[in-house]
């Protein structure tokens, strides 16, 4: 049997993997906030289920939660169609209403109910190993690990089986419709699976922090990859990494595993956001600097070549006059000339700069190229 720390780690990794896979598809559908909405609307089902069933630990409560999540999504679709396509308004109206119903019903319940409203919002992963799965007096490990792996297997097999049609549906819904594909069973199945995943994850993650596990791994992969397969693979890797780092942070910091897992998924996203090799902030800044330097070099080369043709290079091609005429700092001109020299395109000769044979060819290509494009 695993020690408790390892069980928490297992639950953290499974939760983030299941949520990450679910959320990656919702990002592609441009519905990243659906997870937030679903998580909040589950509470109405839990409240109603509690009053109907009379207990807070019945497995049927889960069915109530999933049903109310689905109903809220359906209702918000209907509202957004009724008010003319304002989806964020529909989300902002329907889901808080469901959440409020849940909060009212739960707070009116007698104290023995043991549904803790704070825990609904914040979750507690450290308590996950307390609920065990038992089979004939045999302890099989934490219950949430089993349920989450089930939902993970379901979600993964859904993505695997409907890979083709899912891609078509996500990237070209009009084309899919025109080809005669019926889209609603796919949407409904995906919605059902995400409602199941979120209501399973919600006991460990809470309704708010589950959103970062849903969105951050997908957003990380979105910064790093360009094809759907690598997108899904990187999502899974980022999700597992956030589970591991989350548990790792709790060794140094006295904080709940829920919060550390959520925050480490955000940190991993921020790392990708700044450091991604092609799309990251630093990469784009570096590309911009490189492009600007290249333009400066070309401009200076053409300038030198032009004055050599005109024959006034002795007055025009010294560093000081170029700096004056081109409106650039002398250091900048010198640095650009040095890099041109290292490419063997220009060379210095008594105080002025001249183009080499290679430099002449390059400058002419530059001009003819720009004329041709004109």
């Amino acid at each position, binding site marked *: 049997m695993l020690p408790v720390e390892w069980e928490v780690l297992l639950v953290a990794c499974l939760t983030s993997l299941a949520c990450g896979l679910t959320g990656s598809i919702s990002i592609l559908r441009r519905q990243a906030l659906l997870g937030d909405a679903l998580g909040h609307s589950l509470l109405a089902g839990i409240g109603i289920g509690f009053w109907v069933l009379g207990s807070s630990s019945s497995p049927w409560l889960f069915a109530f939660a999933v049903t109310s999540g689905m109903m809220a999504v359906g209702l918000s679709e209907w509202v957004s169609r009724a008010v003319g396509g304002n989806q964020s308004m529909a989300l902002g*109206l329907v889901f*808080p209403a469901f959440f*409020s119903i849940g*909060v009212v019903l739960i707070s009116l319940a007698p104290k023995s109910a043991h549904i803790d409203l704070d825990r609904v919002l914040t979750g507690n992963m450290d308590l996950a190993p307390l609920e065990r799965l038992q089979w004939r007096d045999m302890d099989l490990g934490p219950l949430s690990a089993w349920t989450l792996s089930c939902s993970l297997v379901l979600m993964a097999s859904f993505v695997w089986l409907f890979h083709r049609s899912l891609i078509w549906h996500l990237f070209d819904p009009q084309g899919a419709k025109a080809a005669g594909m019926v889209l609603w069973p796919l949407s409904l199945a995906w919605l059902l699976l995400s409602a199941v995943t979120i209501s399973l994850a919600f006991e460990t993650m809470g309704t*708010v922090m589950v959103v970062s596990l849903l969105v951050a791994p997908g957003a990380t992969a979105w910064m790093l990859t360009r094809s759907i397969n690598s997108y899904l693979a990187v999502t899974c890797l980022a999700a597992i990494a956030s589970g591991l780092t989350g548990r790792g942070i709790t060794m140094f910091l006295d904080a709940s595993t829920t919060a550390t897992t959520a925050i480490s998924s955000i940190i991993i996203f921020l790392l990708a956001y700044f450091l991604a090799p092609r799309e990251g*902030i630093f990469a784009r800044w570096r590309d911009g600097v490189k492009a600007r330097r290249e333009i400066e070099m070309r401009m200076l080369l053409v300038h030198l070549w032009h004055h050599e043709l005109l024959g006034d290079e002795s007055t025009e091609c010294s560093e000081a006059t170029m700096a004056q005429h081109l409106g650039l700092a002398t250091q900048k001109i010198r640095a650009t000339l040095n890099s041109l020299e290292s490419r063997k395109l220009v060379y210095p000769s008594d105080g002025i700069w001249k183009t080499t044979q290679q430099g002449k060819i390059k400058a002419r290509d530059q001009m003819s190229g720009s004329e041709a494009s004109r």
Partner: protein
Amino acid sequence: MPDPAVMTGCILAGVLYGLLGSFCMARNQALLGDVISHAAWPGLVLALGLTGSRHFGVLGVGAALVGFMALISLEYLGKGSTRIKPDTRLALVLSGFFAAGMLFTRQVQTSRPGSMGHLHSFLFGQTAALVWMDTAVMATVLIPTMILVWLRWRDLSALCFDPQWRQTTPHANGATPAILNGLLVIGIVAGLPVAGVVLVSALLVCLPVTARSLTNRFSSGILVAMGLGATLGALSPLVVMLTESIFRHWRGNDDARLPTGPVFVLLGVTCSGLSLGLKNMRQRKIQRMGRNHASC
């Protein structure tokens, strides 16, 4: 009857959210309030941990500061890279800031035992905890907000409905969007004792939606939203008291405690549902009349 401080606080919060929500909805930023209010949570926790004060005036400053940080990071994420879509941005900032707050709760709990229970009234809003101090904070935020909106009315409405045109006018002030965002953050934080962190966004949506379907002008819409907010704000503590006493008599449990936030939201959403339904019915009727007229 509920305490006069509670009644005044709820009315002021309703007016405040009606006013701010109208601008949010007009700028198509219905979910911005959700992000700011969730981000206010780490601010409350940190302010409590650093100062140990229970005054809302002190805690609110922390919440507003972190709210501004959330707003700035939201804008930065949008400007830095076009790859991250707006909905993903909102979701990341919302949950990230909330998680950052939860990171510190355990430390605050151990360093200041017993004080976290006070913060829990901010999650869903609790009228039992509302004192004159909170009401005073709301009034000091509401009155300057109303004056500013009055003074900059033309610029603000241009910003909401035609920002491109506004840029061409000579009176366009670069500070106006920043002022509006600042008012939004401070206003959302000021109403937290009534509405709670989770449900503020619903109030910012449902009041203006109702007002919008009842009126045709922005200015009258704002007045209707503010009036509706005041009415529902006055009603919700009454409903809370009534329900609690009914439950005490009916089921005999004395610990039935109802937070105000959800009650306020349910009243508001019912109103907006009714008004949207009415509007739809009226539109259908007009369409039907048009069809009959055409077929004649």
